[in-house]
């Protein structure tokens, strides 16, 4: 009886200790850590290097920088080109909505 109990215990211990290794070997186990995207700034200089460094530091900061720069550039370029058109002497008042 004690031999049977011993065998069962041995089997349970084998499964207990062996199963994770088997699962691991079968491709299971702990999930891999999240992949991290890194900008390669080794050959970058100036603006590209700064952008790459911000990207590597914090993606939330990078996201905000993207929005601020795009909005800022849009605003500055929009107003600058608008001024340029006025200087060209084009009539740029309100339009009639004729179809």
């Amino acid at each position, binding site marked *: 009886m004690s031999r049977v109990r011993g065998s069962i215990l041995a089997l349970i211990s084998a499964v207990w200790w062996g199963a994770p290794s088997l699962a691991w070997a079968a491709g299971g186990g702990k999930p891999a850590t999240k992949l991290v995207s890194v900008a390669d700034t080794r050959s970058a200089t100036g*603006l590209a290097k700064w952008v790459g460094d911000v990207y590597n530091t914090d993606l939330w900061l*990078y*996201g905000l920088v993207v929005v601020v720069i795009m909005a800022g550039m849009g605003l500055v*370029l929009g107003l600058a080109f608008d001024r340029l058109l006025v200087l060209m002497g084009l009539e740029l008042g309100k339009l009639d909505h004729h*179809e």
Partner: protein
Amino acid sequence: MDAFMIYLPIAGLHFNVLLLLLIGFTVGVCGGFFGIGGAWIVTPALNIFGFPMPYAIGTDLAHMGGKSIVSTIRHGKFGNVDTKLAVSMILGTTVGMEFGAWLVLRLERMGLAESVIRKIYIVFLAAIGSYVLYDYLSHVIRQRRATTSTTAPPPQGETLARKLQRINIPPMVNFTASGIRCSLWLPVGVGLVTGVVAAVLGVGGGFIRMPALIYLVGCPTLVAVGTDLFEVMITGAYGALTYGVKGRVDLVAAMWMLLGAAIGAQMGTVAVKYVRGYFIRLLFAITIFIACASVLMKQLEYGTASAVLILTAGIAISGVILGLLVRGIAQEKRRARFE
């Protein structure tokens, strides 16, 4: 050409800066003229020249936000932006996009997303293009009859937009810039529907909203263009943030593209001054048919040919728009000299 090659650290590739300026300029002209974001030109164009797809989408969205600011400023000064209408639509669009995203996940779980969505997309583009073209042709025939006939032309039947505007569900709102009065729920509902369609099809939605604003809400064409650009500006900024946080925006590329797009957007926007609303609709219908052909080619697995078609067509259409602009300015100058 090596002198124009720049290193893009996020996408991890060397890219010709002139090409970025050209893509930006082309989409800027089309965007300013039609009131669309132009993702259907930029994303395949960047992809075909080596950008991985997620970076192509993210970079496009980022520059789209900035470019739309340029166009919205000018359209605003022309009196083409109905801010109240745009804000009402944004409410509906946001909810609609969330619902659309949920619908896509359901389709994905059923294993239908890819094939079903692309087929719906083709049918949808063909339907919009056909309707806009039909509307243009009917208008031309009506105009011709009016000029040749001695009697008064038959009145145009009541449009769908007029019927929808008459639905009296409070609150009724005056949209001054558009010159319409309707229930607040009309633009919210239209925003909701276009939001669902845009999310399901995986596009920004400019080319759906622009005709929806004309045919469902009843806006004049120029106000539809300007108001749609206001919305594109908001969705572009939101897209730039979400894709930026996920690290899928190449800011250096987006900045160069925005530089080209800002010049193009200004020209495309000013070009609307020299054409009639119906002519914008005609060019829009042609553009939609080309986009439809490109998606069809992609469905038939001619990916590169599809991207080449869309880029070439984009350049050709912006060429036509620039031609209209130059002709308009020349006429204006001539008129000014005589007066």
